[in-house]
Each structure stands twice: as structure tokens, then as C-alpha cells.
């Protein structure tokens, strides 16, 4: 299959922009949604549905929302079954297992007993499949709220399990969430509006959070995007922070606190922008909220690329938010971003950000909240003296902490496997459920490595998983290091310690590491080639004869002699 031409890539990006007012609408219209057919490729999902109520009213509206997220799906709707007996049957290779129950059918049951029953059924399902589980919550008050609190605990207990927030749709619609007219006729009380909003949330938030890459950065324009007016013409005091723009800025701050990096990409004079943020103390967003700034008169695509480099992420993990359709098109043509958002109206833009695929619903880890601060510290690290590697590490007071089989770090393990592209040898994308299986297995272990220095705490930055194979060999299954840890000259020391710790607990004398060539994992290949003492050009397993057992769990880091 040939790659799409740059022209078709731009065309696809612009077609998706055309869908924005329909798909990201506050109240999408069924008749606007049904005719939409994507002209771009989508990733096909298979979703097995365990249910006691019709879901077809929702799934029939899903295709345009999923397509906007780059996905499509076929649904295996099981029989209506209040006992959820299908949870005990073997998995069918589905990409997602969706548990969609109308809990009002169990209304006479004690909510805690109902939650215990569901916990047992979900454990059975978890034992049958490694696929992510998506479980519907119970919209309503009283017993529903009590049940949902238990459901949240179940979510935390079971790896790779997510819970919908159908309650949010119900809270928004109030009485209009239900339509008693269709209870007998169609077997559901969900109203037409509720079905559309549920499909919107499922297609844009719930399913992409389970199977699609996360958006790591938002590149945001200034003029007529974050305020009303043009800085170069109206001046810092002349641009207007409307209530809509204030709400949009607060939305962006909230996303930053969730771990999404913000970049300012603006065609303005840099000193004017500095002056703007110094004077406009009424802006919810402050200059320091932006992890990267690309302000100048060059092409916007160059600005986005520069900002992504500063943020140490690929441009295809960045969404550009801009009011200028021409600049959006120029960026689509110039760099491969993962999304474009036309900021025509601040309220609509805030709403679009609330729904945009890849921005929400992922398991939030401690590292997410550390990301922006860690990035800011990296600029200071870059300024540290670099002549003597040992002196450099010593000056930074780099400290490594290893953890063995840390179950509380399961979300972070899966996040590293899913998000790391550069230093990821196998590109295996191991999910939480499989990591959990390794933690439970006698012959397999997972080591995570956390890194801190005098400038910041980076949190868990690496994961290495492996099992004891024949002939006292450690068979590594997963090995990746966050790009946040790269650039300090510590990755080799860190990985040697982590692999060595795994060798120690598996009593292995040798180690083999898997490699799969990918578009961006050259740093991982280069590291592996050093230890395999060969080029590692093709997919396969490579022995690393120089690796040794390592017993340390925590230590200051200095380069090995």
C-alpha cells in the first residue's frame, strides 16, 4: 500500500475540519451526522458488547464520531442477558469488551450487592481477555450514585478497565435523558438526544481513550483565539478577554494540569507577546503555562515543528488550535499534526477541546502532572556544564529508584508502552492487563525506573519487563524509556540497572531484547546495537552479552567506568 500524497493528507485534514461544526457540536443533529462518510483511512476496531438493553440506538450514530477520531468499528452485540453470562466465555479477539447494562433493571437489588456481583463478572471477563474493558456507569441519583462509587473502586482494581460517564450526559439533559414513549416500542428509555450525546461521548472520548494515541501537546494561536483582537494593532490593553475567551483559557489551563503540554505558536513580535502576558494579569493563562513558545513571522508549520521539538514530542502528537483557516491548512501541508481545531468561536472551541479525541479519559498518572515542570527543568539541564559526564551527572544530583512488580504503577507502565516512540525497542504496546499478568506470573517480572534530579522529579520514566527463559536467559518482552529521560546521558545507566535488576530476580545469566523497526525508534535501536555488539537492523531478538546482574534498588547515578 502506498503512502498518501502530501496533497491528499492536506485534503483529509481539511475535510476533518469541515466535520468539526457537526461532530463537535453542542447538540449534534442526527440528520447532519448520518450522511457523513470519511474520505480518510480509519483503524478498524472489533467491539464485543455484553448487554441487557439495546445499544443500537447509540452505535448507529457512532461512525462519524469514530471516523473523526480516525477509527471505525464493528459491533458484536451479544444477547440481552441480565446475568452477564457472556463475561465467562472466552474472548473472541475483540479490541474492546463493552459492558452496557441498564442498571435500572436491577433497581430492587442493594447497590453494594449489585456492585459485588458486577465485580465478580468483570473479574471473569478480565480472566478471559487482555482487551480493555469499558463499563457503563448508572445514570441517576440515590442507589445509582452509591453503585457508581463502588464501580470506581472496581475500575481501580481491574487493570485496563475504564468506566463511562453516562451520568454526565444524564446530568446535562435532566428529565430529557429519558423518553418513556420508546420503552415498550423500542426496548429502551434513552431519549433521542441522549442517544446522540452518548454516541458523541463514546466515539470521541471513551473509545479513543482505550485504543488511540494520546494528544500530548496543544499548539495555540494568540490573536482572535485566546482573546478578541489583534495584538499588533490593538495593543496589549486593547485586546478583549470576552467571557468566552476567559472560559477557553481556563479550559486550556485545566488540560495543562491534566498533563497536556501547551505551546504558544503565534505570528507576532516576541517582545509584544511578553508585554501582553506581563500586563494582562486578568488572563487565566500565564506565560509560564506554555512549555514552548514559537513567536515570530515564519511559517506557522515551522513554529509548530519548533514547539514540538522543544516539548520533546513528535508533531503528530500535537493539535493546533487556530482561528485562521489558512494557517491551519498551511500547517496541515507543512507538518504532520494529529489534529486541527478551528477556533472560530471561543465557546465552541472550549467545547471542542472538551470532546477532542485523545485529550481525555486516559488513566492519569502522577507523571502527567509532573510533565510540564520536568520540561521546564530540562532547559536548565541543557545549560549545565557537559564536559565531564560524571561531573555532569553529579552536578545534577541524578537519583534513580527502581521498583519491582509495583502494581500501583500499572497505569504508568501501560502509558509508557503506549506512548513511547523513540526509546521503545519492541513497539509492543503492552496493555495494563498483560502487565498485570506478568506481575502475577511466577516466572515474569516488571521493573520500573523513576528518576529525579536537583531540578525536578521526573517520576517513572522507564519500564522493562521480562521472563526467565531457557538456559538462564532473561527474555525481555518490553523495554522503553520516556523521552523525558533522554538527553541527560542517563538512559544507558538507567537501563543497565533495570535490566540488571530483572536478571537478578530471574537468576538469569544472559539477556535477549526484542527489536521491531519503527519510524522513530532509532534511539532504541542504537542503544541495543551497542549492547548486542551488532547493527540490529531487522526485527528479531538480540542477545546483549555485556549485561550483568544488578542488585541495587536505589542509587545516585554515575556513569559506569
Amino acid at each position: 500500500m502506498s503512502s498518501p500524497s502530501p496533497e491528499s493528507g492536506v485534503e483529509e485534514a481539511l475535510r476533518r475540519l469541515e466535520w468539526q461544526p457537526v461532530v463537535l457540536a453542542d447538540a449534534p443533529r442526527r440528520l447532519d451526522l448520518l450522511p457523513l462518510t470519511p474520505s480518510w483511512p480509519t483503524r478498524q476496531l472489533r467491539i464485543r458488547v455484553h448487554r441487557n438493553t439495546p445499544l443500537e440506538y447509540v452505535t448507529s450514530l457512532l461512525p462519524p464520531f469514530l471516523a473523526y477520531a480516525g477509527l471505525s468499528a464493528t459491533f458484536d452485540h451479544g444477547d440481552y442477558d441480565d446475568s452477564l453470562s457472556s463475561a465467562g466465555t472466552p474472548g473472541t479477539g475483540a479490541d474492546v469488551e463493552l459492558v452496557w447494562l441498564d442498571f435500572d433493571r436491577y433497581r430492587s437489588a442493594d447497590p453494594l450487592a449489585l456492585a459485588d456481583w458486577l465485580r465478580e463478572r468483570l473479574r471473569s471477563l478480565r480472566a478471559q481477555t487482555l482487551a480493555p474493558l469499558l463499563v457503563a456507569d448508572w445514570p441517576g441519583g440515590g442507589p445509582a450514585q452509591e453503585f457508581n462509587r463502588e464501580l470506581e473502586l472496581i475500575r481501580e482494581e481491574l487493570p485496563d478497565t475504564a468506566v463511562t460517564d453516562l451520568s454526565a450526559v444524564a446530568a446535562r439533559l435532566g428529565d430529557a435523558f429519558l423518553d418513556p414513549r420508546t420503552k415498550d416500542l423500542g426496548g429502551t428509555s434513552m431519549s433521542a438526544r441522549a442517544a446522540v450525546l452518548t454516541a458523541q461521548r463514546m466515539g470521541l472520548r471513551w473509545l479513543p481513550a482505550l485504543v488511540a494515541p494520546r494528544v500530548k501537546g496543544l499548539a495555540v494561536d494568540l490573536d482572535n483565539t485566546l482573546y478578541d483582537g489583534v495584538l499588533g494593532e490593538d495593543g496589549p490593553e486593547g485586546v478583549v478577554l470576552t467571557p468566552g475567551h476567559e472560559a477557553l483559557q481556563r479550559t486550556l489551563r485545566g488540560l495543562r494540569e491534566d498533563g497536556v503540554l501547551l505551546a504558544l505558536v503565534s505570528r507576532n513580535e516576541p517582545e509584544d507577546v511578553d508585554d501582553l502576558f506581563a500586563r494582562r494579569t486578568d488572563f487565566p493563562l500565564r506565560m509560564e503555562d506554555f512549555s514552548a513558545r514559537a513567536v515570530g513571522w515564519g511559517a506557522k508549520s515551522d513554529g509548530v515543528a519548533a514547539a514540538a521539538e522543544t516539548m520533546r514530542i513528535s508533531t503528530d502528537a500535537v493539535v493546533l488550535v487556530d482561528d485562521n483557516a489558512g494557517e491551519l491548512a498551511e500547517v496541515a501541508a507543512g507538518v504532520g499534526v494529529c489534529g486541527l481545531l478551528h477556533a472560530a468561536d471561543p465557546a465552541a472551541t472550549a467545547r471542542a477541546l472538551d470532546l477532542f479525541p485523545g485529550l481525555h479519559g486516559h488513566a492519569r498518572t502522577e507523571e502527567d502532572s509532573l510533565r510540564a515542570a520536568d520540561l521546564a527543568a530540562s532547559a536548565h539541564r541543557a545549560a549545565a556544564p557537559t564536559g565531564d559526564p560524571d561531573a555532569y551527572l553529579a552536578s545534577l544530583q541524578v537519583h534513580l529508584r527502581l521498583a519491582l512488580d509495583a502494581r500501583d504503577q500499572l497505569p504508568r507502565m501501560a502509558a509508557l508502552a503506549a506512548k513511547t516512540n523513540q526509546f521503545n525497542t519492541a513497539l509492543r504496546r503492552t496493555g495494563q492487563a498483560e502487565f498485570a499478568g506478568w506481575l502475577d506470573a511466577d516466572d515474569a517480572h516488571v521493573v520500573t525506573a523513576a528518576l529525579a534530579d536537583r531540578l525536578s522529579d521526573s517520576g517513572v520514566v522507564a519500564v522493562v519487563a521480562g521472563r526467565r527463559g531457557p538456559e538462564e536467559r532473561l527474555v525481555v518482552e518490553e523495554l522503553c524509556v520516556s523521552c523525558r529521560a533522554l538527553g541527560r546521558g542517563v538512559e544507558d545507566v538507567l537501563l543497565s540497572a533495570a535490566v540488571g535488576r530483572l536478571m537478578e530476580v530471574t537468576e538469569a545469566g544472559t539477556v535477549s531484547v526484542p527489536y521491531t523497526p519503527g519510524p522513530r525508534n532509532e534511539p532504541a535501536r542504537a542503544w541495543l546495537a551497542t549492547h548486542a555488539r551488532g547493527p540490529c537492523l531487522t526485527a528479531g531478538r538480540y542477545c546483549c552479552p555485556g549485561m550483568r546482574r544488578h542488585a541495587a534498588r536505589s542509587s545516585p547515578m554515575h556513569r559506569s567506568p
Partner: protein
Amino acid sequence: MTREEVQARVDEVLALVLKLPAPPQQPLVRADVDDWDSLSHVEIIYAVEESFGVAFTEEEMASLDGSATIVDAVERHCAA
């Protein structure tokens, strides 16, 4: 809105929901269309209500057995 205009819009809705290649040229009868099951029926009603800004009663919903009765019901509501 004339009956012909209502009919044309109902036909467009039926084509969209039932995924027909084009709006039907003849009146559709529910019993003659395999894909017009109870689930599709509710979706058709939702789409017709949205298109015309009307709300059918539960009894009307159950009695709509083809495009002609849908057009009748829409005209009744629009005239009311």
C-alpha cells in the same frame, strides 16, 4: 409545506436511516422492508421528529407502518 414536500423529506430520512442508495420513488411499507425492524423504527421516528420539529405520541409511533402514514402524521402535527 405541501404534502409533496413533506413526502420528499420523509423519503430522504428513510433513505438515510435505512441506508438506501437513494430516496424511494414509491411509498414504502414497513412490512415490505427487511431492515425496517423495531430498532430502525425508533430511529426513523427520532429522525423524522428532528427533521420536522414534531413529537409523536406513543400511540402514533406504534401506528406508523410506512412512509404514507408518517407523512399523514407529520401533516397533522404541522397543521395543529
